């Protein structure tokens, strides 16, 4: 077994066996089930309020309150929580070991620091993927099981878009793919901060603070902010929503993915740089 594979296997064991890894799954399950229960109870009433505004223009027929709509709502709702859940585990990946002292044993083994960091990073991405997988199963498949399938009616800045049910599965796959890329940027940023700090809390708080500040910058139409917006990774974290527009703005989505990949590689490069030079003196 190569040293890197062995190191990676160790990181998977730690991620799977660590109690804190399961908090995220618990929260996602709770939020999904809570929203599904709420829409099951009051969904029709909520939707009739929304559709009342367009009833004079359109005749809405069929099952609007369907699994696709619930999944769309859940995904929009969790855009704030998911980075926190990802940072909760990945922000602790190195700083937690530094704080607990296990980093000393880890770094006095033959594996190089780059191998250790990459193994931890990949384990973090695996965890992120698992979170999204659980979210996908709960938000999409369970919602479809409860509410049935149907056309997705999405309201965005451009207006109302109806996506036909037989044209939606590839969009969901793309949306979850972009969401994974976005959360991977968050996971990599948290890993970078975890290299720089010696306690578990500060990287997690810093990730959240960054996302909040960047999101606020993104909200306001101020010229000086407008210059920054295209370069902030948070601006592009919601690129998955563009897949539910008609026509799909592929060039915008590709640009967003490019910015996200650039951030990911930059954060990873910086993490390798700093971790290679870090003195373990505590």
């Amino acid at each position, binding site marked *: *077994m190569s*040293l890197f594979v*062995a*190191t990676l*296997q*160790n990181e998977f*064991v*730690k991620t799977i*066996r*660590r*109690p804190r890894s399961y908090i995220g799954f618990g929260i996602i399950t709770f939020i999904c089930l809570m929203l599904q229960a709420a829409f099951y109870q009051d969904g029709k009433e909520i939707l009739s309020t929304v559709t009342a505004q367009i009833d004079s223009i359109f005749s809405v027929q069929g099952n609007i309150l369907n699994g696709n709509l619930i999944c769309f709502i859940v995904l929009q709702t969790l855009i704030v929580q998911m980075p926190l859940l990802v940072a909760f585990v990945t922000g602790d990946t190195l700083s937690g070991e530094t704080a*607990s*002292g*296990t980093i*000393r*044993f*880890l*770094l*006095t*083994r*033959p*594996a*190089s620091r780059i191998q250790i960091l990459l193994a931890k990073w990949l384990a973090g991405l695996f965890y992120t993927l698992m979170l999204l997988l659980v979210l996908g199963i709960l938000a999409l498949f369970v919602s479809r099981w409860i509410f049935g399938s149907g056309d997705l009616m999405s309201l965005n800045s451009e207006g109302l878009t109806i996506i036909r049910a037989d044209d939606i599965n590839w969009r969901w796959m793309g949306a979850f793919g972009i969401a994974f890329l976005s959360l991977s940027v968050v996971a990599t940023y948290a890993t970078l901060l975890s290299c720089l700090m010696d306690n578990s809390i500060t990287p997690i708080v810093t990730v959240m603070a960054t996302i909040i500040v960047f999101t606020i910058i993104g909200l306001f139409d101020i010229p000086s902010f407008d210059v920054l917006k295209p370069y902030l990774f948070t601006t592009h974290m919601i690129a998955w929503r563009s897949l539910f527009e008609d026509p799909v703005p592929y060039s915008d989505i590709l640009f967003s993915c490019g910015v996200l990949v650039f951030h990911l590689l930059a954060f990873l490069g910086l993490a390798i740089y700093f971790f290679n*030079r870090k*003195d*373990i*003196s505590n």
Partner: protein
Amino acid sequence: MTAAIHLNNVSKTYGNFTAVDHLSFTVRQGDIYGFLGPNGSGKSTTLRMIMSLIQPSAGEIFLFGHSLKENRKAIMQKIGCIIEKPDFYTYLSATENLQLFARASELSFRKADIDRLLEQVGLQGRGNDTVKTFSHGMKQRLGLAQALIHDPELIILDEPNTGLDPQGIIDLRNLILNLNKQHGKTILFSSHILSEVQTLCTSMIVIHHGKTIVQGKVDELLSTETVTVRLELAQPENGIAFIQQSAWHAYLQEQGSECRFAMPKTEISLLVRALSEAGIAINRIDYKNQLEEYFLKITQH
């Protein structure tokens, strides 16, 4: 024979503070080395540099004749260590922790091997318990197990006695001696318990303010040293009169119900015999640990 460890002018600075200052020393293979120094002398920083946890600001470290910087992977396969307190993944069992460390050393391991190792460090039957249920002493024993799991040639132990009960200290001493005598392991041993260092170590290195101040064989370094001997005599008047008239007078520093001598350790038995032959009974005799006195003398400048 190739040196197990050779430090060549190694320094470590943090801003304006110099933790280790052009430190050079050599640890021969097959020896048990005591690594001593007062708090803040740079011991831990030095051990961490040897274990590649801290990068030297200057100088070079060689292990088994190879540069640590250029041959880290091969060198780390040959070293086991406990640096300060042993910390583990508390949510995993002792066996799972050891499996993790074995895997990190590219070892193919069997549960029977891990059970044997746990037995060697006195943790038989505790392999399936999670580490969070372990006392500090038990963690220290598990720390030893992880240091030995890959059968290293060089074992670096930083304060391994900390938290051990008296039986644990005796077990550790026997284990270290066994590893050295039976298996030829080189051991670099840092401890504040100087009597333990004197008992165990064949050689020692003393550093102070980040510099080597003494290095050599323990016996040779201490052979020329005098020790402070305290005698409580049954009949102090007769005893003091005898001492005043004999050559032992030269060593006498303080007289009374308890007499204090500064003398070579090798002559203590001769003094006892002389007093006995003169019919002077001794109620109590003790002498301060020789290494302790030596250590204090050389580090108090």
